[in-house]
């Protein structure tokens, strides 16, 4: 089975995370679970990837973190998207459309 190469997907981890945070603030595991479900189990994001994306985006001001007790009383770090995060997300969407268009021209289904 073909697996997604981490080099290719790297640039779009942020996009996926921000997409999920557009709906509502969320925490680490929930985000990774949603990515897995939305990708129909084809992409499982690693914990370290997720964490480094969080810290990088927080540093760039795309997300904000705060701690909150979850339903089961466990303290978790939640992430919330910021205005500049939303802008960044839209930019990334446009970038992807362009990328897809370009790369698509070089893809042949047959052998």
């Amino acid at each position, binding site marked *: 089975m073909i697996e997604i190469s981490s080099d290719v997907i790297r640039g779009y981890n942020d996009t996926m995370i921000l997409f999920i945070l557009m709906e509502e603030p969320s925490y*680490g*595991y929930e985000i990774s679970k949603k990515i897995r479900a939305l990708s129909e189990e084809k992409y499982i994001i*690693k*914990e370290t990837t997720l*964490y480094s994306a*969080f810290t990088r985006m927080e540093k760039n001001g795309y997300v904000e973190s705060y701690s909150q007790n979850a339903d089961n009383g466990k303290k978790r770090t939640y992430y919330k998207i910021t205005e500049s995060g939303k802008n960044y997300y839209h930019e990334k969407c446009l970038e992807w459309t362009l990328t897809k268009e370009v790369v698509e021209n070089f893809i042949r289904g047959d052998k």
Partner: protein
Amino acid sequence: METIRNYLESMFANLPNTPEVMCAKNELLSMMEDKFTELISEGKPQNEAVGIVISEFGNLEELAESLGIESVVGGAEISERRLLTNEEARNYIYDAAQSRMLIGLGVMLIIFSPIFPIILNDIGAALLFIDVSVGVGLIVWANIRMSQWKFLDNTLCCIDYSTAEYVYTAKKNNMMSKALMLTIGIMFCIVSVVPVIIFEGLFSAKDYYYVIVGPAMLFVIVGIGVLLIIASGAKDSAYAKLLSLNGTGTVAGNYEAVRATKEPYTDKKKAAEVMSVYWRTVTCIYIIWSFISFDWHITWIIWPLAAVFNGIMKSLFNTKW
């Protein structure tokens, strides 16, 4: 979950102990915990759940930037440290405790030595020397036995998370018996004079009990008391030693188990140097004084006095030797 925790701790053990690193570790643990809990609730067997969580963890290199460090491979300084396995740690505790017992027995025999001249006149002096030599022999043997562990002092070593936890639990469990032995030992030393006082009151100055049994019992009781005092700290000092191995600058040096046993920092280097030769000096003084004066019935007093002095010094400098 314990396996996952150990895995994460071992990944992080060599990283510098900074807020960023701690934060990352907690966050990653939280995520792994969530995933593990969910897998278990889905009915996955424990082993499989652990396997999945660990395989989906990723790699630390990715974190280097978020952790504010150049590289996380090895962690240069610390990779030099020799990791003490769990088994080695257990062996060390066993050996250290046994050696302490041997030293205790040796000191006890030395304290017992004046009993022989008291009970048996002529032959007693010979027995005294035999007894002292056996006592000294035990102490020397104990030191030789411990020489295989010299590397703990000479080389940088460390213990992993699960070993630290194990040692810390053992240390806590040992607290009660340590305190009990110490208390009984001190009580023995204090009550040692009771038989002498009682027999003094009950019998005339030439009576068998007055001259022989009273003094002899004094040495026996003090000897046992000192043995208890020395033995009480046997395991505890081994535990403390192991927990002090991890470098203070790393995550491993910040394990709860390690931190809980760490003494507050004081300027204790000088004091520690002096105290490192303390007991040897005391032994020397005891032996020299005893052999010069031959006042064996008095010279033993040096041991309880030395112990009390040691206690005072310890609390003054708030540290352990």
